[in-house]
């Protein structure tokens, strides 16, 4: 029998179609189809200025938009060869880790719902709402944050942000504990997740896995430690690693990663120092509005940046950050023009999803749902 899973189905996490060929309930073949959400982001990038591309990165992984903003602007800053101020780096780490928690909360929570455990999801989603409240305070928007700018941030975090984050640290830890109490030792959860989608470390590397799925298979690769950026080398945190790479290990890795992210956030709050959140370079940063209105030089810089864009060097860079799903890479080719000549987004979930058939072949339909959830496929990122 042939069953279409998706493209529009609660368990397909966006718009994906998977054609399952079955014998009874056993999957004999699975053909994933994607592209239902393809918007030509890379093509659009070639016609937009470097700054204008930032809102498009929001739409890649809409569960953790800020990490996409950070990844992209870090790539452009690498191309420009500039370093952003300390405070901007710290705030980027802070919001990235909040976004990682939000992403993992959604992934674990929705995976549990897909498998039939609803209560854990409720505990977790309450915390995601708090994170979105914090994003709203900082960026003015909950989902599509567009918080970073090339050379720093759109603005500094507002008053009241830090105490609320401190309260969140306590409450989120409690929610993760509650969720763990419900799931980690639950025999039904074990039956549905243990041994499902197991993958060896060699295979995981060969498939191009990154992020929690790779670490769950036993490969301790985390760009925050391996190729640190934004000063991650100065923070104290651990990389959780699994052994079998199955759905249960991915769940454990993500749960522990959330705790480690809370640890990093606590350290950021402890060391957050006052200062600018934008580079002091009028060729990159827009001048403050009051200066545009009162000073001729600032007005000229503003005009030049808006009308002509930044002066970019000729060259190409690949910059990778550790997003919630894994290595999010931006490959930018510049010919010195106002627009990027080519922007390539290397989404972490594309290589992971490409192994879907191998993961589910011989399993049951219900296992396919568990595997898909644990892969944390985000259609916006997959299709671009």
């Amino acid at each position: 029998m042939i069953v279409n899973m998706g493209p529009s189905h609660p368990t397909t996490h966006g718009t994906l179609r998977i054609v399952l060929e079955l014998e009874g309930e056993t999957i004999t073949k699975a053909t994933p189809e994607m592209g239902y959400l393809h918007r030509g982001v890379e093509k659009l990038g070639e016609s937009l200025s470097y700054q204008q591309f930032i809102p498009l990165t929001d739409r890649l992984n809409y569960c953790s938009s800020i990490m996409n903003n950070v990844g992209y602007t870090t790539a452009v800053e690498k191309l420009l060869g500039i370093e952003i101020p300390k405070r901007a780096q710290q705030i980027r780490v802070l919001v990235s880790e909040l976004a990682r928690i939000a992403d993992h909360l959604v992934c674990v929570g929705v995976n549990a719902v897909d498998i039939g455990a609803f209560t854990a999801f409720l505990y977790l989603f309450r915390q995601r709402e708090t994170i979105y409240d914090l994003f709203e305070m900082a960026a003015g928007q909950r989902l599509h944050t567009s918080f970073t700018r090339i050379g720093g941030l759109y603005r500094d975090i507002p008053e009241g942000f830090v105490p609320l984050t401190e309260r969140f640290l306590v409450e989120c830890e409690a929610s993760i504990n509650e969720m763990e109490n419900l799931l980690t030792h639950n025999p039904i959860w074990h039956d549905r997740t243990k041994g499902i989608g197991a993958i060896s470390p060699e295979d995981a590397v060969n498939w191009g896995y990154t992020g929690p799925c790779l670490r769950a298979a036993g490969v301790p690769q985390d760009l925050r430690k391996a190729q640190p950026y934004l000063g991650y080398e100065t923070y104290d945190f651990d990389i959780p690693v699994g052994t079998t790479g199955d759905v249960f290990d991915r769940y454990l890795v993500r749960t522990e990663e959330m705790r480690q992210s809370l640890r990093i956030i606590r350290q950021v709050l402890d060391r957050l120092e006052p200062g600018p959140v934008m580079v002091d370079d009028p060729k990159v940063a827009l001048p403050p509005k009051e200066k545009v209105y009162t000073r001729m030089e600032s007005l000229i810089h503003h005009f030049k940046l808006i009308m002509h864009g930044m002066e970019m060097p000729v060259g190409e860079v690949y910059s990778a950050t550790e997003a919630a799903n894994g290595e999010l890479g931006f490959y930018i080719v510049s010919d010195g023009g106002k627009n990027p000549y080519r922007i390539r987004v290397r989404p972490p979930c594309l290589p992971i999803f490409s192994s879907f058939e191998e993961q589910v072949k011989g399993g049951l339909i219900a296992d396919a749902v568990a595997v898909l959830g644990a892969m944390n496929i985000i259609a916006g990122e997959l299709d671009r």
Partner: protein
Amino acid sequence: MIIEHIDAQLPGTVTDRHDFRGDQTIVIAKENLLAVVDLLHREGFQFLVDITAVDWPEREQRFDVVYHWLNLASQERLRVKVPVADGESVASLAGLFKTANWFEREVFDLFGIRFEGHPDLRRLLTWDDFQGHALRKDFPLDGGDVFCMEGCTAPYNNGERGGE
């Protein structure tokens, strides 16, 4: 480091190289791709991070197929570029790296570059009947779809209707 090894073991293979902002890039001819990949694999570059392409329509060899490799042990990265002309094909790496399968399908879909020996070279992001290759520079930004874009004067391309 790795580039010296390639120079020593496969002399004359690297036709161009540059180091920009810490990114090492080498350019090789498409005939040498499999030999270089084999060497890279033996040298510990076992993680194929990405395959993509860049279109330079004014060049004789119009496309650069771009491979990004990572050495998990040393965390060294290497970018390998293979120039190809329109209509030419490149050897597929899908037999060596499973991850290459979909990346090559995507490059085929969006640039029209064929990969010799690929087990299932179909479009990935667009549908089978889709006309053209969307990431080529001469592909119109508005998609050129007469049914969807009738009367469209999208401001970002001055209302031009390429493809007609």
